[in-house]
């Protein structure tokens, strides 16, 4: 049973189609990253999962159950983007309040609060008002409140927003730790580098459609592109290799060899051995997630959603595009 499952999920805000039939599954224990430009529909999808926004059509399930039951949210922790905690609370009292809403009893809450605030690094300020916290501190508090009741699914919307590099690393480590404990993490983020570092799988939304989905390694792998490095003082006879039908790019120290369809790298390596050239570096080239993302969305206009009529025409194109990529 999937922890999150959406089937042809749709959401309209008046004439605006925020989601146009998104289907995805997130399995237990994985870290899933949802990427997309502003207005792509990421937050809408998350809000539908938490019943903050009502779906227009399609289906969405958490732990195999419909979203209407408030109790299902007991198993979910959530950090929204642009959250605003009631600033009359202290860090301690906020967790005490939210813990109460999740049904954590008083003694347990008071035992856990210092532990969790220590975990996110703000224990020293737990009795001061939230209005005095920096953005980074509020973000850390947000993470603490999302995991405080020991949920099975943690949904984080831009969790490292406003957090300094050291803090980001700590948060990544925390997410990894949670994953090791069997928690499922659903992550919305613009920071592709971080997503690439911690996510098992990602999906890319563009204008309310899921255009790419897969595991990071597969998505970033560039088939047929190899980087070759030779021993000191040796030079690759580029012209000869090109004459054999390979595309070669000389980068000075390394050579990038691109194979055509049906070709493998082995004949190239055999040929190099015959030439008495020593290969000291060989790797199949990968692209970064950012490259993938930019490549995927570059054709689209950035920013806001388009009206239905326009979008209706684009829908077919995008689906074709995603199919091509898969």
């Amino acid at each position, binding site marked *: 049973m999937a922890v999150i499952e959406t089937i042809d999920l749709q959401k309209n805000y008046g004439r605006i189609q925020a989601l146009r039939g998104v289907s995805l599954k997130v399995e237990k224990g994985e870290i899933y990253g949802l990427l997309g430009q502003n207005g792509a529909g990421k937050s809408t999808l998350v809000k539908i999962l938490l019943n903050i926004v009502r779906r227009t059509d399609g289906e969405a399930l958490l732990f195999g159950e419909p979203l209407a039951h408030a109790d299902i949210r007991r198993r979910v922790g959530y950090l929204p983007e642009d*959250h605003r905690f009631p600033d009359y609370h202290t860090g301690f009292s906020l967790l005490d309040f939210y813990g109460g*809403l999740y049904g954590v009893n008083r003694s347990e809450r008071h035992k856990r609060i210092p532990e969790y605030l220590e975990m996110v690094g703000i224990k020293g300020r737990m009795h001061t008002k939230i209005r005095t916290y920096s953005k980074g501190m509020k973000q850390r508090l947000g993470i603490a409140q999302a995991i405080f009741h020991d949920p099975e699914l943690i949904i984080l919307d831009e969790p490292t927003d406003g957090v300094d590099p050291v803090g980001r690393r700590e948060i990544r480590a925390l997410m990894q730790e949670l994953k090791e404990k069997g928690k499922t993490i659903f992550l919305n983020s613009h920071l592709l580098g971080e997503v690439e570092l911690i996510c098992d799988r990602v999906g890319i939304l563009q204008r309310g459609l899921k255009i790419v989905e897969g595991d990071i390694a597969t998505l970033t792998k560039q088939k047929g592109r190899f980087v070759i490095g030779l021993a000191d003082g040796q030079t690759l006879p580029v012209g000869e290799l090109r004459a054999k039908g390979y595309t070669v790019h000389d980068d000075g120290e390394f050579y990038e060899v691109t194979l055509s369809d049906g070709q493998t790298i082995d004949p190239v390596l055999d040929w190099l051995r015959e030439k008495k050239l020593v290969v000291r570096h060989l790797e199949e080239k990968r692209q970064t997630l950012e490259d993938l993302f930019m490549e995927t969305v570059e054709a689209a206009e950035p920013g806001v959603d388009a009206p239905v009529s326009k979008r209706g025409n684009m829908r077919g194109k995008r689906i074709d595009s995603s199919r091509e990529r898969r």
Partner: protein
Amino acid sequence: MLKFWAILKDSFREAVDGKIFLVMLIISTLLIVFVASFSVEPVDADEAFSHITHQFVIVSPDRGHSTTGQRPFFYLPETRNLQKTNDATAPQQGDYRFVLHITDVQVEDNGPVSAKDKEKDKDKDRDSKESKEEKAKQDRQKSQFLQAVAYWLSVPKFSDMTRMAEPDTSSITDDDILAFVRSQFESYGDMDLAKLSRRPSTEKGIYEFDVETKGLKGAKGWPHNPRLFFGLWKPTLPLSLGTWMYLIEGSLVSDVGATIAMLIGVVITAFFVPNMMRKGAIDLMLSKPVSRVSLLIYKYIGGLTFVFLTTAYCLVGIWLVLGMRTGMWGTGVLFVILTITFYFAILYSVSTVTAVLTKNTIVAILVTLGFWGLMFVVGFGQNRLQQVRDDKTLGVPKGLINFVDFLNTVLPRTTDLDNLMTKLIVDDDLGRAEKIAFKKDKLKYPAWGEVIGVSMGYIVVLLGLSCWRFSTRDY
């Protein structure tokens, strides 16, 4: 239940965070200290009976039950030969025997003339027997004391009251006169008389009664002088203890204090729902395992709890210090806490529905205050029309009466609630005549069930609308 307490605590924390709450607590504490500085001292028997009997000239019709039309008559009551007949130390606990001496005054067209002056003119009328009888009849009709008795017995129309019509004295009996005197003692002194009999009087225009009183069980009806600021200021202003209590509990606390408390309550609690619905805050709340309806209802109850606790702090404090100072421990003022909270519940349901629809605190405050004002105007109009509705001579348009009646029927009964709130205090504090003097006679009060039922229906409708809108919108 855990969730409910969590939201309740959060609402209270939100209210406490504002400085207004602190100001409210300080004001309440100052009020309690001020009331604690107040004490009373019973006046001695001479002064007390003089004070009580002098009020007899103020007469309420319908055997003292009427809410309106109370008016003075020109006669002079005095107590003579006052004797204490037991050993009680406190003056109000004493048994007393005395003569109530009433000097009548007859009113001629050119003003009041005393009975003694009138006697001097008798000679002029001795010539004719017929004119003598006619004169006696006229004298009887012009007797202010007998007019007072007749007025006490009558049930006048509003128009008769306003033009001070002269009541007919022709059918007054001695029993009526005794009943009137007994009633005035009961009304102004909270006294049941052990004995009351009329003395035969030789002098015309003089009425004398032998009176025996029993010591009061409480001190409510006995006149007391106030002592303010812990006895630093001792004005001579003898009023019954019940009146003093009413002035503090009814006027100072229930009228002025409750209005201020509710006004502040409206302002403070108006922030609760809009703050919860702010972008970034609402996501956090809705992501919790609490249904939207529960969330809103809990917030609503949180607002009520805030008002309940602050009102309870103030009123229980005042009740305690007044009880310790005066020995009067009537519990009506404690029920006022619930009544104020219920009154506020009506206003807060308006604030809540406005907040849910507009997400704007200022609009919620303004709409609530506007609604409150409308309720006051409707209630005030209904109360006024109540007095004149059956008096066709005044020519009040029936359409207007029906319209105000309709508004009063369909809208929450805030004015009725206000009246009932006062009743709780009045029942504890005042004697019958004092109740009438303060226009708080029980005949005027609406039924609790009706007032609560209609108002509760209104709250349910408004909260239902709020919950529906809160549950169906996207955030």
